[in-house]
């Protein structure tokens, strides 16, 4: 008699995920529409001011310090909100979103992404799409930070009623058990939620998770999620 309760728990997890995603999305939009515009405008004005202070070295130096502080703030916002999903997410098909992620990763890191994506991938339910986006983003970021490889390979395929993802590289590799254990009680940090976060997301949606890695042997992460 556990099946109905499992289904109920899974439905609750999905609702929770959807709510937190909506919140995140709102924060991202507010940041782009508010602080980013304001800081960009303030920087433009300050740079005009800085130039007009040409005769006063001290004042010009202060203006320049303010410019540098604001540029740093913008950079931090960029890195922080870069981790969240783009507008129009719901409307766009899965393949398009995966392609966009690969481009974004290459833009931000200059690490190549070899993309294997069938043209007939089709679409999937929103919670699955969000999970795929988050998981790929996290996996690519991990692969960039830790593997030392010049490129990663990303495949997304449909297997019956499931979507299968693989992110792999031929980089340094690591001991998955040790990393998972060390991440046991780590929360979201700077938009990153680690291997454990990937595992939790997959579990919430009733998918499967496998990581194949060892020091010096590269890494391959495989995740399967129900499409609907």
């Amino acid at each position, binding site marked *: 008699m556990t099946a109905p309760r499992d289904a109920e728990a899974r439905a609750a997890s999905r609702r929770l995920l959807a709510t937190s995603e909506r919140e995140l999305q709102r924060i991202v939009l507010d940041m782009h529409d508010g602080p980013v*515009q304001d800081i*960009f405008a303030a920087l433009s004005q300050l740079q005009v001011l800085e130039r007009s202070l040409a005769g006063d070295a001290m004042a010009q130096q202060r203006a320049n310090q303010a410019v540098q502080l604001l540029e740093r703030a913008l950079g931090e916002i*960029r890195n922080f909100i870069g981790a969240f999903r783009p507008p129009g997410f719901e409307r766009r098909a899965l393949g398009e979103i995966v392609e966009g992620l690969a481009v*974004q990763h290459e*833009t931000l890191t200059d690490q190549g992404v070899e993309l294997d994506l069938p043209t007939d991938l089709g679409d999937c339910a929103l919670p699955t799409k969000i999970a795929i986006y988050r998981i790929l983003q996290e996996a690519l970021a991990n692969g960039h930070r830790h593997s030392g490889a010049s490129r990663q390979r990303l495949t997304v395929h449909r297997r019956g009623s499931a979507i299968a993802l693989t992110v792999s590289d031929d980089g340094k590799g690591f001991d998955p058990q040790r990393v998972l254990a060390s991440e046991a009680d780590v929360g979201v940090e700077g938009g990153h939620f680690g291997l454990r976060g990937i595992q939790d997301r997959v579990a919430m949606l009733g998918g499967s998770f496998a990581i194949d890695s060892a020091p010096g042997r590269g890494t391959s992460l495989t995740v399967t999620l129900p499409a609907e």
Partner: protein
Amino acid sequence: MIRVLLADDHAIVLEGLRALLDGEPDIKVAAWTTDGTEVLKLVQQHKPDVVVLDLELTSIKGTAVIAALRDRPSAPKVLVLTAYNDGDSLRSALDAGADGLALKTESPQQTLTAIRQVHGGQLVFPQAARRWIEGRAAGAPGDLTPREREVWSLVAAGLTNPQIAERLGLSDNTVKFHVQHLFSKLGVKNRTEAALKYAHGPPR
């Protein structure tokens, strides 16, 4: 003198950029607007060299504005200025046929540089854009006719169809025909993509 038109939903951004641009010796802000539907009218009226445009305009989509500008006989260069640093903005800018992309999460100095670069005929996109287009295009440029190669180099140099027609002594329609064939052989959607592909590996 580079004459610039600014279009942005955010009045404070317009004000800041106007002040910054007008302080540059080689740049003049010819017109500005917060309304996307005004852009075409203002372009008609002021004939700017470069249009700096946010994709998130209220009354009309930025990509629709770019598409309409592209159809004009002497189209200005278009620099997309956006707060969103993601694959989606990049793709929209490329698909619409913009000449470059600058970010509001970078220093406004970068925007200044990008304005000068697109005005000089450069395409200003992150490195990833080039690789992306390269990876997507299935057809090798090997089977281009000599005429198509010639047209390709002129498209890459930023010439419009009428300019290419004049240069090669052809009719506008013939050029249009060559351009269409060129795009389909290269597997690109528009002039921007064709030019990026040319920059990456011109015909041997």
